[in-house]
């Protein structure tokens, strides 16, 4: 595991891609997928670091993250459905009744 940096760089790139996706995409589902991408980038970091440091804390953390991500996905999708029920769209351009 000499090349920790490459893992870190990959995960950083993944994280950035996720971030940029959140910033640029207009579909709520896609945005949520980008967020998942960010979380998984973090997971990759954790695992790489865990391996590098030789302790398991990072990997346990990853389990937590994955669990939480699942819960988030459930809640998130439910919210999107509720929204879709009322507005018939999940385009974030349409999510702006409240502003100013």
């Amino acid at each position, binding site marked *: 595991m000499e090349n920790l940096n490459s893992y870190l760089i990959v995960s950083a790139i993944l994280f950035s891609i996720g971030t940029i996706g959140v910033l640029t995409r207009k579909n709520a589902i896609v945005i949520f997928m980008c967020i998942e991408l960010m979380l998984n980038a973090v997971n990759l*970091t954790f695992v790489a670091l865990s391996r590098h440091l030789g302790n398991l804390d990072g990997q346990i953390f990853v389990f937590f993250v994955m669990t939480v991500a699942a819960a988030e996905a459930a809640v998130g999708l439910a919210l999107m459905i509720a929204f879709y029920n009322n507005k018939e769209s999940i385009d974030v351009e349409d999510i702006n009744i409240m502003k100013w």
Partner: protein
Amino acid sequence: MDMITIPAVNMTPILPEIFLSVLAMALLLINVFIPSGQKSYLGYISFVGVVAAGVLVGAGWGAPVESFSGSVVQDNFATFFKIIFLLSAGLAILISDQYMEREGCNHGELYPLILFTVVGMMLMAAGTDLMTIFLGLEVMSVALYVLAGFNRANLKSNEAGLKYFLLGSFSTGFLLYGMALTYGATGTTRIAKIAAIVGQMTVPSANIMLVAGMLLMLTGFAFKVAAAPFHMWTPDVYEGAPTPMTAFMSAGPKAAGFAALLRIFLVALPTLQVEWSQLLWVLAVLTMTVGNITALRQDNIKRMLAYSSIAHAGYALVGFAAGNGTGAAGILFYMLSYTFMNIGAFAVIILIGKKGEANGTVMDFAGLGFKQPALAVAMSVFLFSLAGIPPTAGFIGKFYLFSSAVQKGYIWLAVIGVLNSAASVYYYLRVMVYMYMKEPTEDFEWTRITPPIALSLLISVAGTLIPGIVPSVILQFAEQAVKLI
């Protein structure tokens, strides 16, 4: 065959959490058997549960007890915050019933969700491991996303939930990344260990991974406490969420955010204080100013209070920036008094409001002062407290926070803080202007005050005034609470 030895775990520190979780799950089950018109009973049960949890929490005051190999602790700091969470939850439950009935969404799931949120918050305050804190944060957040969007039929509520969810998850990403980097830099997620390792570094601020981790964590929590520039979700979510949930969100989760922040930064990263202090100085100024100035022009009172809550986060950040005992104690005291005054104000808003979130503007308060004198006096007390005018808890809290800045030598921060306070007076007074100095525009239809709301108002007024006049006791508790971290 090897036996898996289960290590002896002391469950006492998380007894309240366990109790509330079990209660919440039980309520979910009970809910099935309760007819739709009578969901209030769930509320009553959960309120009793919250009070009981309060007793459990209160019993833990004293010497710290660690558990789960040091990833959770029961100390005074956690206890103080837990009381705040329970208070906010209790008050939120009290004010929910009437509102939810009116809006036709008194679903039984509401109360378990509130309780889950509390459990999450408690974990955040009690967690001494990044993992526990993260776990708590997510338990809290996921429940909150639902609560924000709880009024399914209402588009605004949907939007609030969705916005909160997307942005919240987004910020979670940063927070997690920060935690990962911190883990990478120190090799542990246990706060005490991080502190030890960082303490051994010769120049911790030269460790880019650590610094970046710290900053990313800071941004993650800054989102939760609604600090600029991570505050933009606040007005929309507060406006859209059901009013009792707005009240709850503005008090509890904000306090939880501060609890985690204080724990991580003061315990794990005191050696980096120069760095984060600087940053928080800027964030505090930005947050106060943006919050207050934007609030000046709001007509929707929920939105106005949302901006005001941003501003209050800014005041609390002043104490955080100071990073000394006075500042930390100030934050504790402030969060407690903010819970009372803000939820109290939202209770009044609920009483003024009408079905479909109608009557939600400042103008709708016109003439309240003489139609409902008691209610108006209560609202005035909350507003004066929010504006930081003695003799209210809000004033003492601000005094403490600004004092910490002065003590630290951040005079200008204190000056900017008080100028902000002065500006904020305008929009708080505006409500009072309508209440007392304008005639009601139309016939004032009055919704009955139900006992739960009356109780919540009573508690809030007492909680706002009494610490304002004799703050000693609570301040001493706060001082004790922060002594240990």
